[in-house]
């Protein structure tokens, strides 16, 4: 729990976005007011801004165990995902036309794939099992020598399900040696170890605002030698893959947040919160857990029998508890992610996503549990 003004907030929607940490906010302020040069300028102001960008690039490269030169900055996860899907599809179109994405991808991959389908590519959706984890045998059947691109997320944004990306990478290399492999790691970055280079991943998307840095910046890992046709054209910045003056304040802030993230320490704490929440949630009649036991502890997806997601969301809001109904990007639409896991329409319509950050405490969970209990007691009555 942390206080803004006079109100006590129980913010449990950290997979939608997070509060910016102080070191990142201060760095952004410094970059905007003092170290404000254009990183491409030849003079001192330019060099100093560039050094801060390079420092951030190194922090992100370190977090992914890759070389700094293989990281480019984008305006966020959506741009990075679009860059790979459209850029790699075009670069490889002579080798084939099949593109495989999992059935539970974030809309920025899912919708891009749909558009590529309209453009004539052969789009295949790899199904998942009831845990939301990709079915490797079925994926094998989709992988052909005409496959050029596979995109699978590291951690699902609605359920926290972890995909076996390392094993998928090996299967792709064997069955579709011409294909490149993209991993959308927005929900996984700084929350679990990610080693794209070692795993054989060609592209990896990460985002800043899920890890206590500002919105409007993300990064893309590009394996040395992997080709992309750029989406944007302009100056010489970022090896012409992503031209345009770099957003030095946001990038530098991103770097600070990454440096502050301690995966092992945070995970131990979040695991503790998750265990605490799970014990209490499973004790409530009418609450069922949609996230698999193997999910990343940062996300718990539940359904409350008989109460629509939005109704419960607003009820919780009244007591200062903030959660989300499926993913924040798909307001009002029925979750295709939960549907792909084989959940019934009733379960999907009543699903709620709880997501933690290191700023949460057990009091937040207590408030949530209390809110759920009172909601079940009053809202169900209204319905019947």
């Amino acid at each position, binding site marked *: 729990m942390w206080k803004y003004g006079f109100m006590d907030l129980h913010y449990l929607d950290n997979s939608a976005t997070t509060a910016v940490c102080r070191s990142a906010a201060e760095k952004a302020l410094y970059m905007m007011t003092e170290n404000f040069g254009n990183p491409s300028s030849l003079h001192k102001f330019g*060099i100093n801004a560039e*050094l801060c960008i390079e420092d951030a690039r190194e922090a992100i490269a370190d977090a992914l*165990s890759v070389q700094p*030169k293989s990281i480019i900055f984008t305006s966020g996860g959506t741009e990075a995902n679009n860059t790979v899907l459209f850029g790699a599809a075009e670069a490889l179109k002579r080798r084939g036309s099949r593109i495989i994405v999992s059935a539970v991808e974030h809309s920025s991959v899912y919708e891009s794939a749909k558009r590529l389908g309209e453009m004539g590519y052969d789009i295949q959706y790899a199904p998942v099992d009831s845990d939301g984890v990709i079915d490797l045998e079925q994926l094998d059947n989709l992988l052909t020598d005409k496959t050029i691109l596979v995109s699978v997320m590291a951690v699902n944004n609605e359920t926290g399900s972890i995909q076996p990306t390392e*094993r998928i990478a090996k299967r792709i290399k*064997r069955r579709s040696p011409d294909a490149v492999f993209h991993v959308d790691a927005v929900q996984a970055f700084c929350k679990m*170890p990610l080693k794209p280079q*070692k795993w054989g991943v060609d592209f990896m998307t990460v985002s800043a605002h899920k890890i206590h840095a500002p919105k409007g910046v993300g990064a893309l890992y590009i394996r040395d030698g992997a080709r992309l046709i750029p989406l944007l054209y302009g100056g010489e910045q970022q090896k012409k893959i992503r031209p345009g003056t770099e957003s030095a304040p946001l990038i530098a802030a991103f770097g600070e947040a990454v440096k502050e993230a301690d995966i092992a320490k945070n995970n131990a704490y979040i695991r503790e919160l998750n265990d605490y929440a799970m014990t209490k949630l499973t004790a409530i009649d009418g609450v069922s857990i949609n996230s698999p036991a193997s999910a990343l502890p940062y996300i718990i997806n539940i359904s409350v029998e008989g109460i629509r997601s939005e109704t419960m969301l607003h009820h919780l809001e009244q007591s200062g508890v903030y959660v989300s109904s499926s993913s924040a990007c798909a307001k009002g639409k029925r979750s295709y992610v939960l549907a792909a896991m084989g959940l019934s329409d009733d379960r999907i319509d009543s699903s709620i996503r709880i997501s933690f950050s290191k700023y949460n405490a057990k009091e937040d969970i207590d408030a949530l549990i209390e809110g759920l209990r009172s909601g079940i007691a009053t809202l169900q009555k209204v319905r019947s």
Partner: protein
Amino acid sequence: MKEIVLIKLGEMVLKGLNRRTFEDVLIKNIKYRLRDLGKFEIKIAQSTITVIPQSDDIDLDDVCERIGEVFGIVTYSRACVCEKDFYDILEKAPVYAADALSEAKTFKVESKRSDKRFPYKSPEISAQVGGKILSAFPRLKVDVKNPDVIVTVEVRDYGAYIRCGTLRGQGGMPVGTSGLATVLISGGIDSPVAAYMMAKRGLKLNAVHFESPPYTSERARLKVEKLLKQVSRYAGSIEMHTVELTKIQETIRDRCPEELFTILLRRVMMKISSRIAEITGSGALITGESLGQVASQTMYALGCTDAAASKIVLRPLIGMDKQEIINISRRINTFETSIEPYEDCCTVFTPKHPRTKPVLRFVEMAEHEAQLDEMIEQAIAATTVKTIAP
């Protein structure tokens, strides 16, 4: 399950009485490269160095990456530690190998038994461990000729290990065992490669970089620092001496024939570097020159530059083609930095037609007329020093 790294030594095992010194330096270098990754116990026995992490949060991928950059190592591998007990080996092998075998179709087991008191012979160990793995992963097949994964069981005097695959090290000799040398570093493709190659032969490095502000920019110096930082991953920390040549270059421009600008500048660099080598106790100069690559690197030009040096000049790239140099520079990850387009001081005041066959006597006469000695002294006195560490 406890995982460690086993390191096999390079040609230094051939050294006679010096061997202990070589091993000690190598262990020191390994410790230095692992210093920020956590606590390790590092010991040596039977010409193998064992690196044992002392806490669970140490990432062995990072450790292996670092070890892969240390000179003096031929091969290395990750291994799981077992009791010297056959049942322990049989129990751990399928569990430890599970990861490596997850996407494999075929495998084989190899066994090495250097402790002959161990009651099971190598073929017997292989057969039994192979059987265990087969029953744990029924989809796998044994292929002794061309397996996807080789699982190796090693029974040594002081313990037993299971490994899945071996990685190739940098080879060469431990940095520091051949002494200290001074590399002239410009920011181009060649000099970082030359530095890397001589460090590979056991030389510890310091570096001299020349700049001519405002003709060269600060970005050019930052680029050189970035290059040295990359080289230091292999060569250990490097002391970088930056010398300002603006006044000397302007004087040469004003007082000497144009076609000798480059050769005169190279000689000044040799003189200053020799002096810095002398002061820092370094025994040689290293340059990235390759015969015939540019006008200052013809045999005659090199002869004139050499005459200005008071130390032996090592030129490891002398017989290499540009493409061969580029290949190494890509491998050691300096290429992309090297090709960043910043002016360096060798390209300031370049003559239109540099002399490709300079004659030493005339060069020395021109140099004498320019009266550079005092300026050289001033430049050396104004040198700035910065330590670049990996």
